[in-house]
């Protein structure tokens, strides 16, 4: 206390929000390590870092979803320890997550005051007071909203305004926004920035998490960079360049070893995709995949890499685009078609989309090939399937006491190998790996890398989607970089560096007036996609 007062006397008053020496570990991962950060009064502080740098963990600690292992948070110099998002809000810290937490079937007013509904007589809802409170809040913020509108009918931009109104309904001092412009067009970004400027007063501040350098320039006063759960540095926005921020983000050292040696430029093109578009996100995506090639897909969260994979194997609906396989145009309507064409997709979420967790290793490995290999007149050839499974357990060195082991009891790396085995038994020529090493410990990662290299060496063509830049750089022969549903760059192994990939990944594809109009028309679809995805997560 005394120190605080002394500090205030000497230099300046304490920062609005101070993060001091905060660390947090999860089993196997140190997510944050000695993190610190100062948010001054009346400023917009941009927080940037690669995927997995620790931004989300920091927010979750701030809102009290997890306790910190070490360190503390100070609001106006007083130590705070939120016990949950509601408590954090009462303390004056409001967080707007990238995924909205809105009820599409409730009205704007009902959403804003969810959990704090004005009542009459103790338990009856007072709808009139609810709407009038919402109206005065909306008018105070100059938002183009009506209290009685259904949230599900609003555009994404307006839904975000509802989130903001909800966050500000309780006298917030600190507003934290995670990628607030991910789904907004240029004009809407302008409206949002106007709103932020109106919110920032002498006693409030905003932490603005984003990757869009042009936006940081437009809205932020300072930029704090974090990497691998550690604080890297803070720079004044006016005195920095995009290049400097990116180099802070990625660091200098290049982890990993040699790049793939063989150049595959001259090999035959196995798969060619052009003009791939979906209602929700993808716009005119095109690329070639050569035989024996590892084609990396890099980009930030939400750039559309997973969506490309799902569209390609027919798991999601495609609006337009042609797929040419071995010189012939093919129509892949569902994953069963994809499997017939020997294309296997290994999802980033093994547990939800890859494995039958409660079933045996054996049943998982044989699943895709049951009809082709392991049945006769409908009767299972269990012996043959077990033998084949054992063979792959041996060659891929899957650590399991037997093929009868339940899949959920295997470690992450071994589960991944089970999914790989499934597609190898199916004899796939094209394997799409989505985050092949997510949730896998370091030693097992190396083994997965070796496996990918040897598969490519055997002539399999591999698409590798990864959010870990060093992994993409180390493994890929060529790298497709995506941003906001489009391909913004194609780099050869020689051209690729952390900086160049980051450059293309943070490009905002040009939004002509025509595009904006298109986006306006598509917005209900965007909302639908968002709620669909949420429903799926649940």
């Amino acid at each position, binding site marked *: 206390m005394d120190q605080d007062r002394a500090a205030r006397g000497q230099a300046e008053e304490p920062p609005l929000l101070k993060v001091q020496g905060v660390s947090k570990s999860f089993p196997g991962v140190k997510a944050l390590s000695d993190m610190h950060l100062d948010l001054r009064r009346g400023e917009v502080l941009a927080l940037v870092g690669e995927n997995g740098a620790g931004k989300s963990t920091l927010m979750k600690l701030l809102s009290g979803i997890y306790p910190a292992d070490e360190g503390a948070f100070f609001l106006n110099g007083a130590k705070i320890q939120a016990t949950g998002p509601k408590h954090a809000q009462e303390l004056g810290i409001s967080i707007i997550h990238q995924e909205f937490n809105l009820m599409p079937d409730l009205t704007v007013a009902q959403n804003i005051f969810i959990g704090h509904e004005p009542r009459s007589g103790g338990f009856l809802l007072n709808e009139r007071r609810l709407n009038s409170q919402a109206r005065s809040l909306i008018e105070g913020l100059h938002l183009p909203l009506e209290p009685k509108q259904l949230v599900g009918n609003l555009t994404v931009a307006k839904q975000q305004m509802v989130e903001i109104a909800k966050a500000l309904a309780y006298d917030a001092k600190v507003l934290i926004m995670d990628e607030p412009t991910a789904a907004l067009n240029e004009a809407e970004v302008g409206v949002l920035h106007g709103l932020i400027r109106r919110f920032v007063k002498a006693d409030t501040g905003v932490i603005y998490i984003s990757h869009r350098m042009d936006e940081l320039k437009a809205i932020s006063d300072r930029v704090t960079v974090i990497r691998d759960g550690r604080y890297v540095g803070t720079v004044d926005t006016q005195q920095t360049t995009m290049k400097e921020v990116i180099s802070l983000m990625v660091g200098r050292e290049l982890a990993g070893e040699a790049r793939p040696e063989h150049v595959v430029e001259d090999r035959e093109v196995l798969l060619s995709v052009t003009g791939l578009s979906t209602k929700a996100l993808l716009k005119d995506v095109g690329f070639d995949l050569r035989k024996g090639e590892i084609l990396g897909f890099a980009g930030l969260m939400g750039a559309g890499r997973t969506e490309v994979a799902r569209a390609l194997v027919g798991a999601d609906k495609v609006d337009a685009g042609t797929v040419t396989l071995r010189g012939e145009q093919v129509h892949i309507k569902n994953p069963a078609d994809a499997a017939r064409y020997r294309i296997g997709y290994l999802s980033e979420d093994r547990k939800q989309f890859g494995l039958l967790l409660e079933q045996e290793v054996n049943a998982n490995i044989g699943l895709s090939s049951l009809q082709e290999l392991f049945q006769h007149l409908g009767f*299972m050839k269990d012996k043959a399937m077990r033998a084949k499974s054992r063979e792959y357990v041996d060659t891929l060195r899957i650590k399991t006491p037997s093929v009868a082991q339940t899949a959920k009891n295997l470690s992450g790396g071994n589960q991944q190998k089970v999914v790989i085995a499934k597609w190898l038994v199916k004899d796939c020529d094209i394997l799409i790996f989505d985050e092949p090493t997510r949730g896998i410990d370091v030693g097992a990662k190396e083994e997965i890398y070796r496996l990918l290299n040897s598969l490519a060496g055997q002539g399999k063509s591999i698409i590798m989607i990864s959010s870990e830049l060093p992994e993409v750089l180390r493994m890929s022969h060529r790298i497709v970089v995506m941003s906001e549903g489009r391909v913004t760059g194609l780099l050869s192994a020689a051209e690729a560096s952390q900086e160049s990939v980051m450059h293309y990944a943070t490009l905002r594809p040009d939004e002509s007036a025509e595009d904006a109009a298109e986006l306006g028309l598509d917005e209900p679809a965007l909302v639908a996609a968002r709620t669909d995805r949420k429903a799926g997560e649940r």
Partner: protein
Amino acid sequence: MSTSTVPPDQQEQQPTVAALGTSFKDRLQQFLAFASLIVIFVFFSVASPNFFNYANITAILFSTVVIGTLALGTTFVIITGGIDLSIGTGMALCAVISGELIVNAGLPVPLGVLGTILFGGLLGLINGFNIAILKIPPFIATLAMMLVAQGLALVISHSTPIYFSDAPSYIKISTGHLIPALNLPNAVLVFAFLAVVSAVLLNKTILGRYTYSIGSNEEATALSGINTRKWKMVVYALAGLFIGMAGVLISARLGSAQPATGAGYELQAIAAVVIGGTSLAGGKGSIVGTVIGALIISVLNNGLQLMSIPQEWQNVILGCVILVAVYADMARKRAA
């Protein structure tokens, strides 16, 4: 990071123990169901002098047949994570169809029986289409079919029972004694045969494997290149075939097709499946469990009746048994 990494062999060791525990618990659940059947059986044998004799046990088995047959098909549906509410009134409709074909249209009995079973399959196929292709939730789709079947049974029969008095060979399907030495009604033999066929289908065929796969993780199964929509339709169509067979068995047993019956059977059948340890969440279950579950229900009904406990109280007790069985299943899952 490296400090917190567990050495690979240690990582493997731990789960292995857990796995043994799980499979042991799985077996325990079936054992528990079987043990409760024995306990109930012994209890009634002691409590009522009329319970433990050949005639009464035959009666119990006979009374298990219809619900048991419906429960066999429903086991497949529930393992996929679905539900079928149309089996009860669907059965009544099938019985009426059987009467129409054999009594009113004069078809030979074997042809009439075949037609009835296929008609049941058609009902199931329609359920499957609505669920797999139109994506109507199973509960709603089969609730609708339940009402449609109930109504159609009355419309087609003009709300009057159809008697099989002129087709004694039809009645024999349920009440005859094919193997005199055994002294068991044919319906029991048919049910035993259907149970064995179901167990083979579920455990030994590709259909059974996909049934479990879809229930374990439908999305992952689809992404593995399996046409889950087709297989879900097959599963509901299969359940429909069992509806048809139950329709034949019940009308042959009663000697008549009763269009107004059937409602309520679906819940008893679902209860049998659930008591037998099949999870409503899908992915888990067995035919043996379902047979035990169906036996538990009919032993309870029979024993309580012999003890002169009114019908109303029998339902109260059955309700409690279901609660206990499902709670035991959930407790097992939480422990696992």
